[in-house]
């Protein structure tokens, strides 16, 4: 902490001393508690790169003769984190205030920016998309409905992909914003892929911008999933508005060339 490290880009987890590498892990193994189970837990910890590792807690789950053991393990992770290699989805556009965003839309689009929002599939979690779209907004920022130069419609929950595609076509949407909160068995990934494929098929290159969001998304997966952008947990409306302005302005420019 007090000494400058040699490679400021190489760091390790910090327990109570620089470089100690300390990490906490918990997991369940499908086997009865006992020395063998603890050995198995240590084997896993070792494979995860913890050395030394201490099993500090082990307990059978579910009462009675348990076939599952829960462990808490502490250990020193041998891995180095190389900050030089950290892949961040950096914001490549400036954060605009609502006013600035409106001005920019006027300047580049010369008409209102049309936004269509929905939760697709069987997902009924609307609070996230509402936080982005509703005037009320999120974390002190007003939602997109508040932006004078945007025309926002929010289709709500449980919209099917075909419904969404046809609505987007009807509204001539510039951007389609989709929320996915349920992730069990990777439902969000599956649904997003289906979404991207449907728009590609229906509209090809003339498809609107596709923006997806939800708390368990990894923003770096946009390309892989075939969408333009992914927003993760804690996203604010301003970030989304700024992105839309930036991306659509670029699109206009490209079209103009």
């Amino acid at each position: 902490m007090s000494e400058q490290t040699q490679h400021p880009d190489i760091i390790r987890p910090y327990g109570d001393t620089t470089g100690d590498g300390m990490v906490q892990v918990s997991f369940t193994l499908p086997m009865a508690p006992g020395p063998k189970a603890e050995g198995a837990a240590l084997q896993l910890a070792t494979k995860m790169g913890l050395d030394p590792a201490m099993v500090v807690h082990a307990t059978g789950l579910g009462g009675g003769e348990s076939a599952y053991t829960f462990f808490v393990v502490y250990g020193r992770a041998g891995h180095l984190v190389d900050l030089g290699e950290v892949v961040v989805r950096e914001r490549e556009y400036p954060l605009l205030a609502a006013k600035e965003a409106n001005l920019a839309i006027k300047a580049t689009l010369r008409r209102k920016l049309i936004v269509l929002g929905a939760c697709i599939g069987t997902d009924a979690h609307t609070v996230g998309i509402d936080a982005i779209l509703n005037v009320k907004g999120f974390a002190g920022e007003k939602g997109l409905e508040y932006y004078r130069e945007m025309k926002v419609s929010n289709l709500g929950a449980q919209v099917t992909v075909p419904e969404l595609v046809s609505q987007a076509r009807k509204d001539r949407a510039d951007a389609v914003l989709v929320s996915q909160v349920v992730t069990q068995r990777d439902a969000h990934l599956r649904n997003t892929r289906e979404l991207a494929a449907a728009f590609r098929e229906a509209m090809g290159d003339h498809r609107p911008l596709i923006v997806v969001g939800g708390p368990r998304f990894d923003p770096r997966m946009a390309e892989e999933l075939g969408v333009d952008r992914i927003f993760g947990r804690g996203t604010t409306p301003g970030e989304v508005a700024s992105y839309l302005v930036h991306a659509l302005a670029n699109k206009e420019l490209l079209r103009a060339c």
Partner: protein
Amino acid sequence: MRTHPTPTASAWHPIIQLDKRLVGRARSLAIRAAAPVISLAQERTTVSVERAVLRLAGLRGADPTTGDGDIPWVNRVVDAVRAQVGLERGVAQPVWHAMRVYGYDDLLDLAEAVTAGTVEFELPFGAAATRAHNAATRATRAGLRRIDRNRATRDRLVNKHGDPPRRPWVYLIVATGDIYEDIPQAQAAARAGADVIAVIRSTGQSLLDFVPEGATRQGYAGTYATQENFRLMRAALDEVSKELGRYVRLTNYASGLCMPEIATLAGLERLDMMLNDSMYGILFRDINPQRTFIDQRFSRMIHARAGIIINTGEDNYLTTADAVDDAHTVTVSQLLNETFAHEAGLANWQLGLGHAFEINPDLPESFRLELAHALLARHLFPEAPLKWMPPTKHMTGDIFRGYLLDGFFNLVGALTGQGILLVGMMTEAVVTPFLSDRDLALRNVRYVLDAAGGLTEDFRPPRGGFIENRANEVLAEAVGLLQRITDEGLLNAIADGTFGITKRPVDRGKGLDGVIVKADGYDNPAVTLMEADLGRGESS
């Protein structure tokens, strides 16, 4: 024969004073607000109500010949009846008329014939109608008898194994999506202390206008509610009840497009509680309001008959609305749920009215506000086994904080005499619960109840203190809102976003096309039987 096993804390004595005038007004306003909706429900039926009649009469299974083989026979038959003669007089008359005309003994034979296109339905009149009615009555009575037998079995098993030794009953969710993973998890949870096991449904199911069939292994964030899954899980819990010497209850979800049918299957497979809210489907699944109010009424009659405790869904409002600002909407909804439930024949001990610990934990005094709200419900519904729901909205990925919050939630449950305690999970914001999450959560409950449960002796909110004042304040707001609702009409209030700040117009939402206005001569032998046993005739 009918005992009333109930998780209401029997030793509950009032510890705050509610303004008696406000309490009286609240209740009478709720009855007035619900009346028009009850009439609406009485005058209509739905495809699912009619399918439930066939299920009571024993028609089960799905048509293997079309699609994924998952369209149930009851859907096939009801759709055919509707297409050919309409459902305005119910499904019973045309079906049992056809049974006689075509000479079938077994509904399944009829169903196969219907699918093969060899049956033409007719509406019987006169003696034919009476014969059809009688045959239908016999058939559905068999189903009701099975429900009655299940109720008696439950009473017997509760007597034999015993009820949970203390209140609140500990309620745990399993939700793997795979019934064969759910079963050992549920058994493990029971062994670890759960008194009630709820199997969460797959996300999509409440919008399916049919009930899937068989044992299922591929749900998303939940397991399909099917008759076979019900049976498998109930059998597994009977096994573990015996092992533990404590009757472990089973719960599932009725609300949704198939509320009447799922309620029926629950009765047929001896489930013990059901999630059943008069408005949940409307608000959180965008199901048409009329459809929901009709369906909930039938489903609750079945629950009443089956001795099933319903759990209402007011907790959900606080996930979209603010738990302090909109606390009174919970109270209003509880009063409405009570009114609808009474009308459908449910007794007070069957009313697991919902409420939740959803106040922003960063708000100063948030814990005491929770106590005030929980006490309000407790004093307003002294005989109901209230269901106390854990924090969800303000749970984050900080699982340590989550575990702490759940502990304080448990403490409120203990201090305010809640009947059913839904166990909170530290991973609420992350995943559907891991096996270890449930175990940790149960340890949390046990610690709080054992170590601090007796604190009720020392918990004495003073007259006119923060807690009593807050309870009366929310009650007053509830009365104000009920006044507005009686003026405007409940359906308009729902359309305006009164509950859970979600707007649901009366003619929108899913399933409206499944609503049918009854015609003269509408015949639903199941309803007739149930009403008669309740000592009243079907009023329409």
